[in-house]
């Protein structure tokens, strides 16, 4: 059963990689690049993000009160507010309004025609399948956002929160339209297609009975709906028909007008990298704008007003008397999400799509692979779990590799990877026990309930596995390479046989360090280096964290780190330390990770108290200590470990800054080119720059990679269903660095991926810098 699902998933991903991937990648990566550039050029970006988040936190906290505030405001303006419990409730209300409006407004001759609705793009109406519900009620619905309209014509679903038809190429649209509308001159260019759409949709808007929009934000105390578009269709839908229905999730409420400012300033920057969108419509309906009745061509549009030239005088509180306005506020699980400590953050989301654009996996498969019933991309897990239930989120949740690229992209600072981890954990706990549990049971004494996918348990307990494999190396390596074993691993654990497995070293880093004399010998070496070096005496001591890979697989980079620190006069300890919990976290095994975090902190507490610095080589382990431990440890313990732990190159940079002598390290010829791929989490922690700085100081000219991710992200690339996706993502990076003479990467997975794809050596930067490395 598990096996069939896995290969079906693999097939589905392969299909999307081929069909939708290229178009998605072109659009999403361009938006992402523009976002990065715009973010980079925005001086007060951090302040904006902080403000935006604080406003959302406050608004969600006060939500019940804001609902009453907006009800009063809208009613005072002459409109109506309806709070809908769920999809059916909302749809029924909307259909009722449309029917009665069409009946009221109908001329004798038009009375028999179907009521008609024009819509501006809205994910919330997608969430409730509003179009289907209206059509079932005999109402004609037309989407007016060009992307949405293409989907409507193609009978397809959105694949991106902001660019719903991102997965369809211009050629495909032209073919679709030529077939459907049979023009005398077939459409070819985007210009021709757009003109046609403009004219066609323009007529439909002019004749519509009701306009339906979403709302990007709703200002509670004035009842102002904010609609943000580049095309201008929302403006037409909202004000051309005399009835406007805005459908918005309750989470769109913000208290007052000044709260709108940071969002107006940041939403386009995060979505497309534009400084601001073309049209930010702040509408406090019913508005003073005259209704435009295209059925009465000779009627002046301003008839019925006093025709005064003075704008201030004609403005009043009730708007054009012909206008009717309904605000439908949708709950559909949101009030429960508000009570859920882990999912609540999802409600801060402003649906800008930046997380999707920044996600390497999303760029490859798009929202039809990386999404649920409605929402797509990383944050979709939270949305789907909240509004459609966990099952809807389960299917694509694994596609979040926890790389944290989206963390810096999100304008409201949502910890999207954490939401994914939490949902993964909940999904794990709800599934049925698997029949292969026995295989993993012996190896993995974890804290998780039965029923967890054996592959997940295997990777979540990789430390135990590695220890055993190292103890039996090289036999374990030969075995792991043997065909029958690979077949078994693939069948039972889903480890793709095309992927090289790590080669376990017989002598672990910890054992090597002990064999050469442990801390005493290290102190002597550091002492000697200090006496040779006429520079300052640096009085620090390091505990080097032997993460699973450094300890058992990539022992060389551990040795290089030890030698480098000693050469700079710093004595090192390499104790046998507990796992960080990183592996467990990436499989959604929060209980296991929690236990490991506590054990690690307890073991390190004395070192921290003694003022020793914890130095970490693997960025993802450091990220666990600096990010996720906030959720797993008491506040003080977390802060203590975070403040006392460093990434190896960051630490070396600090030593050099404090007077250590870079001549002790291996250096390049002054401008020796090196391609350097930092690591996703390393970038989020702002640790790319110190590595670059150290490399430069030591005579190298590092070129950093711009690709989002290596595609491996821990265990991701080993899994059969994701192998091809992992390679697709990896090839973008590989293509970028291939020409370089030397390539270094900070993460194990990144290095492995590049070595496999390029068939050449890729080491850790510390191995380039370690004394004697170039000898």
């Amino acid at each position, binding site marked *: 059963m598990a096996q069939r699902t896995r290969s079906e998933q693999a097939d589905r991903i392969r299909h999307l990689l081929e069909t939708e991937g290229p178009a998605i990648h072109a659009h999403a990566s361009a938006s992402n690049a523009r976002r990065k550039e715009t973010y980079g050029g925005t001086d007060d970006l951090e302040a904006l993000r902080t403000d935006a988040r604080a406003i959302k936190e406050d608004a969600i906290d006060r939500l019940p009160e804001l609902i009453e505030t907006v009800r009063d405001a809208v009613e005072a303006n002459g409109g109506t507010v309806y709070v809908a419990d769920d999809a059916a409730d909302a749809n029924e209300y909307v259909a009722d309004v449309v029917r009665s409006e069409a009946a009221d407004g109908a001329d004798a001759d038009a009375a028999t025609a179907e009521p008609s609705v024009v819509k501006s793009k809205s994910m919330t109406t997608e969430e409730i399948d509003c179009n289907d519900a209206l059509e079932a009620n005999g109402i004609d619905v037309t989407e007016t*956002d*060009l*992307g949405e309209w*293409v989907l409507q014509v193609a009978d397809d679903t959105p694949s991106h929160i902001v*660019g719903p*038809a991102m997965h369809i*190429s*211009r050629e495909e649209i032209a073919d679709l339209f030529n077939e459907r509308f049979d023009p005398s001159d077939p459409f070819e*260019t*985007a*210009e021709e297609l*757009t003109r046609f*759409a*403009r004219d066609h949709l323009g007529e439909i*808007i*002019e004749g519509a009975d009701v306009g339906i929009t979403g709302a990007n934000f709703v200002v509670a105390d*004035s009842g*102002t709906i904010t609609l943000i578009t*580049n*095309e*201008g*269709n929302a*403006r*037409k839908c909202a*004000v051309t028909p005399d009835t406007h229905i805005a459908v918005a999730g309750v989470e769109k409420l913000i208290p007052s*007008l*000044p709260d*709108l*400012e940071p969002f107006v*300033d940041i939403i386009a920057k995060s979505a497309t990298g534009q*400084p*601001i969108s*073309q*049209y*930010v*419509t*702040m*509408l*406090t*309906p019913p*508005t*003073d*704008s*005259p209704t*435009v009745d295209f059925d*009465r*061509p*000779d*009627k*002046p*549009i*301003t008839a019925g*007003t*006093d*025709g005064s030239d*003075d*704008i*201030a005088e*004609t*403005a009043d509180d009730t708007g054009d008397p012909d206008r009717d306005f309904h605000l439908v506020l949708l709950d559909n699980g949101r009030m429960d999400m508000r009570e859920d400590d882990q999912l609540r953050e999802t409600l801060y989301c402003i649906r800008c799509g930046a997380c999707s654009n920044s996600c390497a996996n999303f760029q490859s498969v798009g929202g039809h692979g990386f999404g649920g019933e409605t929402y797509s991309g990383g944050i979709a897990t939270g949305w789907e779990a909240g509004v459609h239930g966990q099952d809807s989120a389960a299917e694509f949740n694994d596609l979040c590799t926890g790389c944290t690229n989206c963390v810096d992209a999100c304008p409201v600072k949502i910890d999207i990877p954490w939401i994914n981890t939490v949902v993964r954990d909940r999904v794990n706990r709800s599934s049925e026990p698997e029949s292969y549990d026995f295989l993993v049971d012996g190896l993995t004494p974890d804290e998780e309930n039965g029923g967890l996918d054996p592959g997940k348990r295997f990777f979540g307990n990789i430390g135990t596995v590695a220890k055993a494999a190292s103890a039996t190396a090289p036999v374990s390596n030969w075995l792991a390479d043997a065909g029958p074993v690979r077949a078994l691993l693939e069948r039972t654990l889903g480890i793709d046989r095309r992927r090289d497995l790590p080669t376990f070293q017989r002598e672990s880093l910890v054992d090597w360090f002990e064999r050469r004399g442990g801390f005493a010998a290290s102190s002597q070496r550091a002492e000697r280096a200090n006496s040779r070096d006429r520079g300052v005496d640096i009085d620090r001591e390091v505990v080097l964290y032997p993460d699973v890979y450094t300890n058992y697989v990539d022992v060389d980079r551990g040795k290089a780190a030890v030698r480098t620190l000693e050469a700079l006069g710093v004595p090192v300890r390499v104790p046998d330390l507990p796992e960080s919990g990183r592996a467990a976290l990436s499989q959604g095994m929060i209980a296991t990770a929690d236990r490991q975090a506590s054990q690690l902190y307890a073991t390190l507490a004395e070192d921290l108290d003694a003022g020793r610095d914890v130095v970490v080589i693997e960025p993802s382990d450091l990220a666990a200590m600096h990010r996720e431990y906030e959720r797993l440890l008491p506040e003080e313990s977390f802060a203590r470990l975070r403040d006392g732990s460093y990434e190896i190159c960051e630490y070396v940079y600090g030593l050099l800054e404090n007077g250590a002598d870079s001549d002790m390290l291996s250096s390049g010829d002054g401008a020796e080119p090196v391609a350097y791929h930092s690591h996703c989490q390393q970038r989020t922690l702002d640790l790319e720059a110190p590595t670059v700085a150290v490399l430069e100081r030591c005579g190298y000219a590092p070129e950093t990679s711009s690709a989002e991710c290596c595609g491996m992200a821990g265990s991701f690339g080993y899994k059969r269903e994701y192998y091809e996706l992992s390679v697709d993502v990896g090839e973008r990076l590989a293509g970028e660095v291939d020409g370089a003479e030397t390539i270094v990467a900070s993460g194990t997975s990144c290095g492995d991926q590049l070595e496999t794809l390029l068939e050449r050596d890729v080491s850790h930067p510390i191995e380039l810098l370690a004394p004697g490395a170039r000898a």
Partner: protein
Amino acid sequence: MTVDTVGRFERALEGLEVGFERVAAADASERIGTMAEEPAVGAPLPFEGVSLPESVTTDPTTAELADARTGVTPVGFAIAEYGTVAVESTADGAEPISLYPERHVAVVAESDIVPNISAGFDRLADGFDTGRDSVVFATGRSATADMGDLVHGVHGPGDVHVIALEDR
């Protein structure tokens, strides 16, 4: 408002490929006439001594609005940093007039050009206090990339000109 602010506004509009011109109030009517490709419709201008040229129809009928090539409207204020003009939803139809025709000619008093979005929000708040609480921040030309490439002039105008009244 400083000269700098106007300069910044002009540069922002240039980046958006929006035309910009500074004129004295006395010359405004004539300049608007040149900009407004016919048939043109407009909303009355609330600036003393400045009126729309004869060629621009005010109080247009629906048919005149639908057929117009140009819509001329005043705007409440403008935001220099982004090249934004704030179109208010007034009873004389400024909003549809600025939206339906292919070309929008926006007329703003130079004293109403504010430096940044923050100052824009202050102006917005002032307007809200006096009941002018439906406003569109329009920046550049209507655009879409949904058909595969960037195209201007989708549902809104594909051609925008801003006229700043120097002595207002």
